[in-house]
């Protein structure tokens, strides 16, 4: 076999170009997996909150206590990023914002809006 690979394989992570859209895309995956993993926790909270006034108060306390400690912020970011980047992907599917410049701009927007809105949510919840 004398065929040569034309595509270079960079195992050095620092040498891989990671454009902003790639960050949006991989974060969409990561946030999706995190949301899947947090499903039991979220359903548990729903269960508690509908059981009665005591359970409702307990669910609120859990959310407020977990906000920074047990990663409720992470769940919140995951939901926001997944939602926003999902809307971006749907728009690109129907050929809205497909030019490189527009796609980069929307990727920046999604990547920064998700953490910003997560911060806004702490004002809301705490």
């Amino acid at each position: 076999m004398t065929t040569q690979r034309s595509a270079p394989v960079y195992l050095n992570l620092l040498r891989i170009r990671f454009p902003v859209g790639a960050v949006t895309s991989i974060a969409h995956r990561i946030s999706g997996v995190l949301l899947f993993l947090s499903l039991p926790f979220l359903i548990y909270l729903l269960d508690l909150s509908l059981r009665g006034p005591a359970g409702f108060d307990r669910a609120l306390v859990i959310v407020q206590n977990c906000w920074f400690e047990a990663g409720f912020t992470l769940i919140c970011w995951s939901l926001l990023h997944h939602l926003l980047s999902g809307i971006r992907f749907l728009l690109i599917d129907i050929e809205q914002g497909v030019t490189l410049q527009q796609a980069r701009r929307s990727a920046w927007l999604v990547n920064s809006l998700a953490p910003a809105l997560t911060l806004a949510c702490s004002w809301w919840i705490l």
Partner: protein
Amino acid sequence: MSRHTHGLSEWLLQRLTAVYLAAFLAYLLLHFLFQRQHTFQEWHDWMTHPAMIMATAMFILAVLVHGWVGMRDVVLDYVPAIRLRITVLSLIALTLLGCGIWALRILLQASG
């Protein structure tokens, strides 16, 4: 399904469920934006309104489908070993099924 169209129905299903999930989440966000604080009674009455029960049940089903297609895509991309892949996919399916039954049961109990 014919080999020719393999994957297309999943692709479409993922987007259809995505639109519903996004719409429902937007409704939730708007609701909580306009009414930040809830008492238990307000929360319970809102959640057990027949229209809300229907919409939430559909949301749960959409989460199951969307979660399955999405997690399956991730596993197919990163887990090449066939036995491990089947094991992981089974665990995901069981988790989603369990979560779905649990969540629907909560809705039924709250409304009943």
